[in-house]
């Protein structure tokens, strides 16, 4: 059984690295050390998921488990500036950059933030005297009871982004968090962590970019926790543009107070294997949650979105709008869970997942998962899987637009429908350009468009 042995050795690497990290993080507060230790035990109990588990039925992480990913060595990070330039967005309020998992103050831009807005490195905050507040939030929301990767991330908390918006503060421009990997990232793992805490009636948008050099095989295992204060409004945009050979597993867990609004966007373009868990608990009355998502994959890429909207209180509404474009031999998964708790009357939930298959070999598994325990609710869901509309293609061709261009135009229009929902022009423009470039890789642009 060489494969089992291989996997076992690879798992052992995580334990060895955890022991090493334990020695290096002796200055971390005790509450965190014990949380991390418990999480590692949890990981040891759970082990990596297999396709026998329902939540991982269509996403096989065996190739990830086989490789002994070592903790990324932040000191080894090479030239990153050029790659970083590609990830930058104009017109942001602040930028915090992590290179191979570690905060890079030189590449970050944290000056001139308005009063009441704090963007910092988690490691730095943990060493300062502000731990009391952190203890009540960090690793308090993302559930690891049945999620080995979340447990693993928590076990390896060392650095990450810490964003705090005080009560009543309205931040007009977004905060950009960049987790970038370098050429030296081969066969290493990082566990990016982000904690976003917004106060009462605060308003902010956080854009989280995950990217790395093309062709490199590495593993990114991210967890983001978002606390949305009472009557606060938070936008969260995740741009996943990892290396085409990378493994990417990430959880976003939000916790929403009364009358709060969360707008989440997940754009997944990169990685050989990408798994996103995006969850929100609407823990206060009248909370609203919108989950938008776009995945565009080709070749042998695999992308999986598991979303979970927990309507825990009455009068909450959720809107979910995911679209996927799959080409080549790529595969995708969309699993949208909506839970309506017993007392969550007047829940209003709408879910939609539309998929465009550009090749005969591309595959998508899409499934709604509704658990409704209240009786006065509205929950609707719909999923479509289709090819480009031949009538629409003919209409464009009959006006002089060539077949390839027509296909291209309709595909972009399909995807842009999600991009248009991101309320920040520089992010939209960059994404449109990225999408154009990615779709153009298989396009013969002799046409005028």
């Amino acid at each position, binding site marked *: 059984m060489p494969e089992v042995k291989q996997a076992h050795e690879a798992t052992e690497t995580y334990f060895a690295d955890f022991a090493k990290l334990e020695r290096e993080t002796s200055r971390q507060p005790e509450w965190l050390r014990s949380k991390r230790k418990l999480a590692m035990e949890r990981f040891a109990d759970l082990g990596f998921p297999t396709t026998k588990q329902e939540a991982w039925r269509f996403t096989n992480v065996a190739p990830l488990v086989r490789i002994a990913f070592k903790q990324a060595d932040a000191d080894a990070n090479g030239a990153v500036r050029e790659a970083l330039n590609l990830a930058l967005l104009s017109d942001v309020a602040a930028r915090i950059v992590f290179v191979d998992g570690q905060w890079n103050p030189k590449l970050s831009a944290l000056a001139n933030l308005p009063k009441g807005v704090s963007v910092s490195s988690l490691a730095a905050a943990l060493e300062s005297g502000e731990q009391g507040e952190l203890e009540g939030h960090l690793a308090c929301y993302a559930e690891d009871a049945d999620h080995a990767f979340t447990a693993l991330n928590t076990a390896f908390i060392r650095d990450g982004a810490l964003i705090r918006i005080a009560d009543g503060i309205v931040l007009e421009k977004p905060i950009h968090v960049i987790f970038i990997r370098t050429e030296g990232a081969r066969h290493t793992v990082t566990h990016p962590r982000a904690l976003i805490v917004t106060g009462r009636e605060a308003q902010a948008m956080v854009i989280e970019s995950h990217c790395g050099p093309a062709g490199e095989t590495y593993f990114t295992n991210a967890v983001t926790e978002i606390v949305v204060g009472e009557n606060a409004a938070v936008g969260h945009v995740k741009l996943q543009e990892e290396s085409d050979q990378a493994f990417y597993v990430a959880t976003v867990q939000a916790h929403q107070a009364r009358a709060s609004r969360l707008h989440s966007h997940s754009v997944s373009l990169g990685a050989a294997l990408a798994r996103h868990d995006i969850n929100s608990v609407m823990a206060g009355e009248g909370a609203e949650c919108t989950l938008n998502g776009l995945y565009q994959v080709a070749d042998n890429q695999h992308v999986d979105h598991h979303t979970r909207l927990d309507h825990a209180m009455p009068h909450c509404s959720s809107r979910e709008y995911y679209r996927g474009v799959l080409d080549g031999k790529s595969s995708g998964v969309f699993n949208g869970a909506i839970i309506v708790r017993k007392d969550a009357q007047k829940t209003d939930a709408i879910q939609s997942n539309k998929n465009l298959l550009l090749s005969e070999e591309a595959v998508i598994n899409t499934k709604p998962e509704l658990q409704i325990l209240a009786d006065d609710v509205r929950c609707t869901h719909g999923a479509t899987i289709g090819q480009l509309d031949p009538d*629409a293609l003919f209409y*464009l061709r009959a*006006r*002089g*637009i*060539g*077949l390839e261009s027509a296909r291209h135009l309709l595909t972009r229009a399909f995807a842009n429908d999600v991009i248009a929902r991101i309320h920040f022009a520089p992010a939209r423009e960059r994404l449109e350009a990225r999408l154009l470039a990615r779709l153009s890789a298989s396009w013969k642009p002799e046409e*005028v468009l």
Partner: protein
Amino acid sequence: MLEIKNLHAQVAGKEILKGVDLKVSAGEVHAIMGPNGSGKSTLAQVLAGRDVYEVTEGEIFYQGKDLLAMAPEDRAREGIFLAFQYPMEIPGVSNMYFLKAALNNIRKAQGQPELDAMDFLALVREKMKLLGIDEALMSRAVNEGFSGGEKKRNEIFQMAVLEPKLAVLDETDSGLDIDALRVVADGVNALRSPTRAIIVVTHYQRLLNYIVPDFVHVLYDGRLVKSGDKNLALELEEKGYGWLEEQPQTV
């Protein structure tokens, strides 16, 4: 300009066109009339290159070229325009973007310089005025949420911008009220010229009060069974299509 010889076409194994012959010269307006299911739309779609219709026999020459060997986009670039009976909605693609791409692909193929945004806008404004179209339409997605009449009007607007050599109107008059019909007819009449040809496919004689044809043909059961001048249309209006059944098949 256009010569159709013994055209047979089928869809899903069912023969629709059973030997159509038609000659259209530059400067002429031909009306093709016929009852439901006679093959009018099939003929229009075959001319534009719709591949669900399989041509099993016959030939079509357009400006001396073998039309059936040309892709739909190449036919459009050579100056053929089909005004669709049921224009498609294209969500996410604005009218402006769509029409500019169409025009510049056609101009490029015809060796003319492409229009930049400014020149294009000027052209579009002029044509909009001609057809009484609201400028807000340009930023809307192609036909999305348009009423039937708005879609038809948009087809004629596209035709006015693209200035085809051969325009085929597939029941453009169906479902239009009289005001919209006039607008459509004015758009078509503005395009009449000695260098262009127009084929008007219609179910009703009404349109021909506004677009006066040089020739009227009756398509019945996949064949052109009768041809004449505009008076034939009036005769059809009066008698209906029933009397054709007793007629021997002649062209």
